[in-house]
């Protein structure tokens, strides 16, 4: 009996030992740091004045400060422990939601009624906590291994919630939305320009790059030449590329009949489009070459052996098998170009870069954010969406053992 107890003793200790999750602990520490040690918001009397950093306790009424403290205070220790992924997702989401509410509350609380010049914006503490909570929620979601369709659903849900918050007026007193109010007439157009530039340049790159890869791949010399030329293009800094494009595009706009009517000119959307297209070409082409290279030789051989023509082999065997790799290349350039399209603002091409560069020149950080935040949201949304599509395209060839 005594021996029995002795052998069991160490076992009974095990649950008592704290089971920390290393990654979750980092998120918890960042949440705590953001809430306790850093300012939650900055209050400025106008859009370019220096601000006063305020912690959660001075930025929020007592009740709301306590609510924020309670939710983050529960979420952080939970995230630090080894808990079920679902619970991790819930804790991260609760912290995220609470932070979104707290930003709006602080803005309302700190804005005197009727004031139109005061600027309340999230400060380092809020951003840090927001990033930590977002990463924790994403980590929880990833550990649940959701199906691609479920991930697209989650993205739609987040978008709907964000839309709801914007509609509700909760954030209307935040500085970024104050900037938005004064630009609401152009905002929609710039978002469309930004998305349009990114999508059109990637679509054009796919239309050119994929056939180029298919044609050049079997010829070693051509293939090497194509990839090295595109590699060189990739290394040209974007600003330099714009500069290089101004003269030839201006010349085309002046001399080729009808070109000017299409909007081809030294500045504006044309050089932006050409530059984005040039940057997208290498990843798309290289991904297509790599995807086609990865088709197993016996499969290629069998496709010839059963009597497929070259075209049938390409359409029925090689391209379907290369599709996940090609889509991965497109995902990379789409996310890259959504961000890069900001540069278009510099050459009169429009897009959200207009706000970024105006904000920089006016020393108005809130205006920079009005350009930068939607860009980040669009790029992240595109990444999640395309990752899900890639997984769906991979689905059929994946191992599905009964």
């Amino acid at each position, binding site marked *: 009996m005594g021996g029995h107890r002795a052998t069991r003793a160490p076992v009974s200790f095990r649950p008592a030992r704290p089971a920390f999750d290393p990654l979750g602990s980092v998120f918890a520490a960042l949440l705590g740091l953001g809430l306790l040690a850093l300012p939650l918001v900055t209050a400025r009397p106008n859009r370019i004045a220096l601000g006063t950093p305020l912690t959660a306790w001075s930025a929020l009424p007592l009740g709301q400060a306590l609510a924020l403290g309670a939710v983050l205070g529960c979420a952080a220790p939970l995230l630090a422990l080894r808990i079920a992924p679902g619970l991790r997702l819930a804790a991260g989401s609760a912290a995220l939601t609470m932070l979104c509410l707290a930003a709006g509350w602080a803005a309302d609380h700190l804005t005197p009624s009727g004031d139109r010049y005061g600027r309340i914006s999230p400060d380092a503490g809020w951003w840090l906590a927001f990033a930590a909570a977002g990463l924790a929620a994403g980590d929880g979601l990833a550990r649940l291994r959701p199906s691609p369709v479920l991930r697209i659903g989650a993205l739609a849900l987040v978008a709907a919630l964000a839309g709801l918050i914007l509609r509700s007026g909760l954030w209307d007193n935040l500085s970024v939305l104050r900037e938005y109010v004064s630009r609401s007439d152009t905002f929609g157009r710039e978002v469309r320009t930004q998305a349009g530039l990114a999508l059109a340049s990637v679509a054009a790159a796919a239309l050119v790059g994929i056939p180029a890869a298919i044609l050049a791949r079997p010829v070693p010399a051509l293939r090497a030449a194509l990839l090295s030329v595109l590699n060189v293009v990739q290394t040209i800094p974007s600003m330099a590329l714009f500069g290089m494009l101004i003269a030839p595009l201006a010349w085309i706009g002046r001399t080729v009949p009808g070109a000017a009517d299409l909007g081809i000119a030294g500045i504006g959307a044309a050089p932006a489009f050409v530059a984005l297209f040039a940057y997208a070409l290498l990843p798309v082409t290289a991904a297509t070459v790599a995807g086609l290279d990865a088709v*197993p030789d*016996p*499969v290629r*051989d*069998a*496709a*010839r*052996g*059963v*009597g*497929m*023509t070259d075209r*049938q082999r390409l359409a029925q*065997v090689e391209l*379907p*098998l290369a599709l996940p790799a090609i889509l991965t290349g497109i995902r990379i350039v789409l996310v890259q170009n959504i961000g890069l399209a900001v540069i278009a603002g510099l050459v009169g091409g429009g897009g959200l870069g207009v706000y970024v560069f105006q904000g920089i020149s006016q020393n108005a950080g809130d205006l920079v954010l009005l350009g930068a935040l939607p860009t980040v949201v669009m790029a992240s949304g595109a990444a999640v969406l395309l990752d899900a599509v890639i997984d769906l395209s991979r689905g*059929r*060839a*994946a*191992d*599905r*053992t*009964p």
Partner: protein
Amino acid sequence: MIELMHVSRVVDGRTIVADVSLQIASGTILTVVGTSGSGKTTLLRLINRLVEPSAGTIRVAGRDVRTVPPDALRRGIGYAIQGHGLFPHRTVAENIGVVPKLLSWDRNRIAARVDELLALFRLEPALYRDRLPAALSGGEQQRIGVARALAAEPPILLMDEPFGALDPIIRGQAQDDLKAIQKRYGTTIVLVTHDMNEALRLGDRIAVMDRGRLVQEADPTALVGAPATDFVGALLGRGDRAFQLMALRIVDDLVEPGPAPGAPIMAGTSVRDALAESLWSQRPALPVSRDGVILGRVTRATLEAQGACP
């Protein structure tokens, strides 16, 4: 009927296949044996124009293959390779149905043919039809690979080490299946292998390739009895010759009248297996039966005599 007349294949000054002439009679199996680099795979791929000859002529059913467009030619010739080459993104049914689809068979006919072939290879159609290749075992993948090659009922089947990746037990089963199917459809088969025992077991005739040259072409008994060169002898493994010969013959025509003790052996048993049984059960003679009727007996002395050099 497949005829190769003085066929050579030279790549960058290197001779892969050197002046090979061969005739493969309809409805027979020719096995091509050789070490790696002997040109045996190239020889096979010349027949369906996966590679083109540098010299010589190849005729299939009397027609020079160069007069037939390669795609059309290949659709009429079954092709099965080592590692099966199944399309990983297509289901079992789509893989098997690929050639009929290229030949524009109607959908119902393809579906019926797929089910017929799955049943032929003892794979329950309802269970296997919609699976992807990755969800199959190696043996199952190999059977689907052969089923795909047979789908459009080609008169000719080319096989390149089709059983190379299989374990010995499944391999034996697959070889038996192939023999049965060949009998059933009367298919002409050219099968490339590096395994002499497989070549002896399957081939009506055997072609031995060495450094691009055809060094001997003979039926199994003649090959074992009189290897043309030292290389053929080395491939056969000299020590096993007597047993290889015995493995090629069955006891059916060695039966003599008379009694023998113990359980009977089947008339289709190979001399080699019969001798092993005689030694193992310490019986100098074994009763032989066919369809449950005792035909007579076979003596150990008769069995042993079959191992002598012909």
